[in-house]
């Protein structure tokens, strides 16, 4: 049952001088790119920039006119193309599920072709459905009975069926409406951790790129313009085009003029007035939150989190004095202070009453 | 292969004229009846499924069987041949006319109504012209059917090019069969080709862009 994948783990994927022309048009122009094993690399650029074509040279759906692609140091031309593709997962924008097959048959097709038994297929399909957050009884449904978002999750499950170490994704959320897209992006972030594999992800949406990617490679007119970590791109854009793309200048200006009140999160759901530890515990469990802001007669008393609460004998012990800001404080200095004290949370107070919360990672996400 | 001999002994010139004459009459009748029927069904869409079902069943009847069944009614010769041709050819024309008229894009109809055309004017000035390419496609099919049935007419004394073919088979004469057979084939291809050109022209002029 163990599939002989061509490679167990990806160390590197190297595109050397890859060039592809269609008649007079050069789709990909001498691109050199190295993808590090285990990372999620984003390929981003306007339409016609060659990002999809470049992606497809990796699983040889496109054969370059010049240049070579290496996986773990071996030229992919050496491999049998079908074996190569079975060792690589592939997800496309239009999803491409087979309409005449059930969800189970769609996901399990490759497994069946590789000779897995019915039970093994069954088990694996259920595992995969679980991973992409779809109910098990979807196995007998047909694609046309699923929504766009559900279909794309099945598409992802199908790509992961054989457990490939490398995943290629071509604007997978592109065909979905913005709300659904955000939702799937969140979920994908969660899955990304669980999967822990090398992913090359094409998109034209810079926000998606910053949200999901480890490194980002920017393409234009078939050329690779810049590749690097998000903050490198923001701080050191290679040219006007990149700067515009990542909104570098805008972001900086933004940071200077923002106030705490611009980015604070609503505190309502974290406020509680209690005396005892067990009351608080129960309340936090009911609300499914990890930390709480304790008040007395409306005024801020302190904050605590689940961990501290469980370790302490009573509420007094668990209470901590939080960092306190006022709404008009500069955001930049507030964040700096939080960083210094290593606090993940700050309470925004007006006349001793809590009016908002500043959460470090929320802020960053919102900025980007 | 003595083409000249076959041509003369079998009187192919005459036969060709007979053949084309029957073809012309049959086709003309089919087009008129077919288009009118399509129009009528467009007006009464409820009848469409029944009408098309009946016509569909008629289409499956073996050609020769239909021909001979008409004999008691129309005796031998041209009449049953033309009648059978028309019966076969109505369906493609009527069906295409109906589909052509009903499936004109909503936007065109809405614009026409918006600028103030009456239902009848919409039909004449918008639906019908836009349906022409499809109708032409149906007529093309009818051309092929009609040629086929008229050729068979030779078996029931209708004359036409079917007669020398029959003679050729009975006499087991290779030359007659090949010359006449190829000649009929060529005629059929030419007529089909002409119909195709007309269809193409109409499609360019009135077709969806």
């Amino acid at each position, binding site marked *: 049952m163990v599939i002989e994948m061509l490679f167990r783990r990806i160390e590197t994927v190297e595109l050397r001088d890859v060039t592809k022309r269609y008649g007079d048009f050069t789709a990909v122009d001498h691109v050199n790119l190295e993808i590090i094993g285990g990372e999620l690399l984003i390929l981003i650029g306007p339409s016609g920039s060659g990002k999809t074509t470049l992606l497809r040279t990796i699983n040889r759906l496109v054969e370059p006119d010049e240049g070579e692609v290496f996986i773990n140091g071996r030229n992919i031309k050496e491999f049998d193309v079908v074996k190569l593709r079975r060792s690589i997962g592939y997800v496309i924008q239009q999803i491409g599920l087979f309409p005449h097959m059930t969800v189970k048959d769609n996901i399990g097709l490759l497994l069946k072709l590789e000779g897995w038994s019915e039970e093994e297929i069954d088990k694996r399909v259920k595992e995969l459905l679980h991973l992409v957050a779809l109910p098990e009884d979807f196995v007998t449904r047909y694609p*046309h009975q699923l929504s766009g978002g559900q279909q794309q999750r099945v598409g992802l499950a199908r790509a992961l069926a054989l457990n490939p170490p490398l995943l290629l994704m071509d604007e997978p959320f592109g065909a979905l409406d913005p709300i659904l897209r955000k939702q799937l992006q969140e979920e994908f972030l969660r899955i990304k951790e669980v999967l822990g594999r090398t992913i090359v992800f094409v998109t034209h949406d810079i926000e998606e790129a910053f949200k999901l990617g480890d490194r980002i490679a920017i393409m234009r007119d078939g050329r690779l313009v810049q590749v690097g970590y998000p903050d490198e791109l923001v701080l050191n854009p290679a040219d006007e085009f990149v700067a515009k793309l990542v909104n570098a200048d805008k972001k900086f200006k933004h940071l200077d003029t923002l106030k705490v009140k611009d980015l604070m999160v609503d505190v309502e759901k974290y406020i509680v007035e209690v005396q005892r530890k067990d009351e608080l515990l129960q309340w936090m469990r009911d609300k499914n939150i990890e930390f709480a802001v304790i008040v007395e007669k409306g005024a801020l008393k302190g904050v605590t989190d689940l961990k501290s609460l469980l370790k302490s004998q009573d509420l007094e012990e668990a209470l901590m004095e939080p960092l306190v800001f006022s709404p008009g404080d500069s955001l930049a200095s507030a964040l700096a202070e939080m960083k210094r004290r290593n606090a993940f949370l700050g309470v925004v107070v007006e006349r001793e009453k809590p009016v908002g919360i500043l959460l470090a990672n929320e802020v960053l996400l919102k900025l980007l | 292969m003595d083409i000249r001999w076959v041509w003369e002994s079998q009187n192919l010139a005459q036969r060709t004229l007979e053949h084309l004459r029957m073809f012309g009459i049959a086709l003309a009748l089919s087009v008129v009846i077919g288009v009118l029927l399509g129009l009528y069904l467009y007006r009464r869409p409820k009848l469409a499924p029944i009408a098309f079902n009946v016509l569909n069943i008629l289409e499956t009847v073996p050609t020769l*069987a239909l021909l001979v069944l008409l004999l008691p009614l129309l005796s031998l010769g041209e009449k049953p041949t033309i009648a059978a041709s028309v019966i076969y050819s109505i369906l493609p024309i009527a069906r295409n006319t109906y589909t052509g008229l009903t499936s004109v894009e909503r936007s065109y109809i809405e614009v026409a109504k918006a600028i103030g055309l009456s239902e009848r004017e919409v039909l004449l000035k918008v639906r019908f012209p836009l349906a022409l390419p499809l109708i032409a496609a149906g007529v093309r099919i009818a051309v092929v059917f009609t040629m086929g049935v008229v050729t068979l007419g030779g078996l029931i004394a209708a004359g036409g090019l079917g007669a020398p073919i029959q003679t050729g088979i009975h006499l087991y004469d290779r030359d007659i069969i090949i010359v006449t057979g190829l000649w009929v084939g060529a005629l059929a291809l030419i007529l089909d080709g002409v119909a195709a050109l007309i269809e193409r022209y109409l499609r360019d002029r009135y077709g969806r862009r």
Partner: protein
Amino acid sequence: MVGVERVLGAFGEHLVLTYASLFLSIAVGIPLAILSLKSKRLASFIMGFANLVQAIPSFAVVAIVVPLLGIGFTPAVFAIFLRALLPIVKNTYVGLSEVDEAMIDAARGIGLTEWEIIRYVRFPHAYPAMFAGIKFAAVLANSIAILTAIIGSEGLGSLVFEGLASFNTDKILAGSIPAILMAVFIDISFSYLEKRVTPEGIGGG
């Protein structure tokens, strides 16, 4: 009156004639359609040829077989085969080839071989078109099988021709009615089969 044995015998011959030819044209037609997938040039050649031949009157086709193969059962089968072949090839090819490109791309991308793609993606998509083609071919075969009596194939056509020659209405009817019933039967049974075989999710094809 025509003897029942005679009619049954003729009907039997007719069935063999029709279905033998049909079977042959399916056996040749479907592989030809699959082959046409390989090259666009081959495809347009085959389709072009198919369209051309279909325009030629059946009677001419049946006749031309005679100088080539003589008279009798086999030449008749060949004539019917020729006629029935083309709708099958054309419909099957269209069904196989007009699959959504994105689906083929996905199929290739996840690692299916070309043959696996034909088997698991193109074929199921092609069922409706294929069936329509076979149905059309069957009706055609049934019709021409009457005609081929004139080149010595026996079958129901013999009854019809004999009846024609001797102005014997009984014989004419004995020959035509079963043929007509057969045609209706083919139409209905194929439509039914088509619904049964079309996989859910393909729908209108």
